[in-house]
C-alpha cells in the first residue's frame, strides 16, 4: 500500500473512530454536581476536532503524495515476520493469563525462554541458563528489594 493510500485509510478510520467517540461522549449522563460544561463537554469537542483532523489527512492525501511522518515508518514485513510478531503478541497475552495461576517466577521463566527462542536464540543450555538466572534475579529485585509482591500462583497456594 502506497503512503497516500495509507493516509486515506488513516483518515477514514480516524473519522469513524472520532464520530463513534463523540456519540459515546454525548451519552455520558451528568450528575447533579455537574458544571455547565459537563462530563461530556470537553470529550465531545475533542472528538469533533479529531474528526476534522481525520478529514484533513484524508483530503491532503489526494492533494500531495504524503507527509513525511515518523522516520521509523516502514512497510509491513513478509508473512514469516508477521507470524513471528503475532506469536510474540500471543506470548505476552499468555504470560498475562498464566501469571496469576502459576506464579511470577515460572511465568517469567517461560516468557524469557519463549521470547528468546522467537527472537532467534538457539535452543540450548545458554538460553535455558539465562532464563534460569534471569527469572529469580528479577524476582529478587522486585519482590524482595523493592517490596512489590509478585503472585505465588493459585495452583500452588
Amino acid at each position, binding site marked *: 500500500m502506497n*503512503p497516500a493510500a495509507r493516509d486515506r*485509510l*488513516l483518515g477514514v478510520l480516524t473519522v469513524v473512530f472520532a464520530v463513534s467517540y463523540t456519540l*459515546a*461522549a454525548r451519552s*455520558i*449522563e*451528568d*450528575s447533579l*454536581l*455537574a*458544571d*455547565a*460544561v459537563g*462530563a*461530556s463537554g*470537553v470529550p465531545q469537542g*475533542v472528538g469533533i*476536532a479529531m474528526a476534522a*483532523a481525520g478529514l484533513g*489527512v484524508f483530503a491532503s492525501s489526494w492533494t*500531495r503524495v504524503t*507527509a*513525511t*511522518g*515518523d522516520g*521509523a*515508518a*516502514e*512497510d509491513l*514485513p513478509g508473512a514469516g*515476520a*508477521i507470524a513471528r*510478531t503475532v506469536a510474540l*503478541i500471543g506470548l*505476552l*497475552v499468555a*504470560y*498475562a493469563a498464566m*501469571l496469576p495461576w502459576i506464579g*511470577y517466577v515460572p511465568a*517469567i521463566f517461560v*516468557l*524469557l525462554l519463549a*521470547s*528468546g527462542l*522467537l*527472537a*532467534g*536464540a538457539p535452543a540450548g543450555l545458554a*538460553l535455558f541458563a*539465562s532464563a534460569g538466572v*534471569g*527469572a529469580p534475579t*528479577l524476582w529478587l*529485585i522486585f519482590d524482595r528489594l523493592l517490596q*512489590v*509482591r*509478585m*503472585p505465588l500462583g493459585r495452583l500452588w497456594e
Partner: protein
Amino acid sequence: MDALASALGSLSSWQVVAAAFGGVLWGILGGALPGISPSIAMALLLPFTVGLDPTTAIVLLASVYVGAEYGGSIPAILIRTPGTNAAAATVLDGHAMAKQGRAGEALGISLISGLYGGLFGLAVLVIATQPLAEIALAFTPAAYFSLGVLGLSVIAGLSSGSLMKGCIAALLGLMIAFIGSDPVSGVSRFTFDSPDLLGGIKPILIMVGLFAVTEMLAQITEPAWERASRSAARLKLPDWAMTRRLFKPQAIGSVVGTVEGVTPGAGGTIAAFMSYSEARRWSSKPEEFGHGSPEGIAAPEAANNAVTATALVPMLSLGIPGSNSAAILMGGFLIHGLQPGPMLFTRAPEVIHGLFGGLLLANVAMFLLGLVILGPCIWLVNRPKPYLIAFILALVMTGVYAIHQSVFDLLLVTAVGVFGLFMRWVRMPVLPLVLGLVLGYLIESNYRRSLLISGGDPMIFLTDPVSLALLVLALVMTLYTGWKEFFRSKGKGVES
C-alpha cells in the same frame, strides 16, 4: 552568607554524605526500572527515615528524587523504554544514537546535561526560592489551563513534518486522559463498567507500550541492530566541540525546567517535551532531531533535572507539593514535625540549608555513580539481540505488573504496543500522543474550574494576566513553528 556556610557545613557530616550517595544509587535503580516511579522509590524509603535526624532524612529522600529522575533516561536510551514519564522525550534521539552504536556518547550527554540542569535548578532554588514562590501563587486555574495550551502548542515541533497526524495523535492522547472519573463531578467516563478503568490509565503504561513493546514487536522481525564497537561501548563524555554545541539546548532545558518546576503541577514531563521542541526550534540542525541528535538528549535531560530542584520551591516556601515526589518529600518533613511553608525558613533553617547542601552532593553523586554504573549498563545492552529482547520484555512486563499488581495492565500495554505498530505503519508521530496524555487532566480540569469561577464567562482566560501572557506565547510559538515547518516542507518538495 551564613546560609551558605551552614549548607556547606552539612556536607561535613558523614551521615549526610552517605544519605546522598545511597539515595542517588537507590533512585537510579528505581528510575531505571519501568514501573517504579521516582515517588514510589521515595515512598519505599520513607519508613526508614523515621529514625534518622531530620537533615539526613530529607537529604536521603531528595537524593532518591534526583537519582530517579536521572535514572529514567538510562533505559530510555539503551532499550527505548522510558523509566519515568519525563524520560519519554529522551527516547527518540537517545535510542537512535544507541542503535547507531553511539550508546556511550548518548549516555555521556545525558549524564552531563542532567548535572548541568540539576546544578542550575539548585542555584535557582537557593537564590530565588522566595521571589519565585510569588510566581507560583499567581497561577490561577485559568493560568493552568493556558499553561496546558502552551504545552500543546509544541505539537507542531514534535510532529516530524506531519502536523495533521500530530494533531490526531495529540487528540488521541487527550481522549485516553479522559478515561476514568470526571475531574469535576466524579462521573465515570469511557470505563465500559470496568473497575480497572475507573482510576484512569497511567501515562507510564501508554509510554511503555508505545515505546518498549512496539519496539520489541518490530525488532523481532528485523536483523540484529548495530552492536557498538569496543570503543563506542564505553561511556563517552562530550569533548570541547560537543560541549559548545550542547550549551544552547542545555540552557534552554534549564530555563524551561526552572519555569515548569516552580509551577505546581506542571512537572518534569511537560518541561522535557517543551525543551525538546524549543531546542529543535533554535537548533542549526533541526533535521537531525528524531534521528540521533545530541541536542535532542541534552535539552530534555537538563530540563528534567532542573525540575528536581525547582519543584521544591512551592513545597518549601508555600507548603504546596507540586508533584507526587514533592508530596513524599513533604511527608518526610511532616514525619519529623516540620511543616513546609513560609515559616520553615525561620523555624528550621538548618534543615533547609542541609537540604541545599545535600542536593549539591546528590548531583555530584549522580555524576560519579553515573561514571561507574553506565559502563556495565552499556555492556549489558551490547549482548546478543535475542537474549536482549527476552530480557527487555521480562523487565517491562514485570515493571508494568508492579504498578498496580494488575493483569489488566499487562494486556493493556500489549494492546498499546500493537497499536504502536499501526502508528508506525501509518507514519503517525508518537510524542504528540504522549503530550496530550500528560496534559489532558491539567487542561480539562482547569478549563472547567475557570468557567465555574467566572460563571461560564470564557473571558476569564483573557482577563487573567498570567493566562493571557501564556496564551499569547502559545499563539506566537504555534505560528512560528507552523511557519518554519511550512517552509521546511516546501524546501523538501523542491529538493525531491
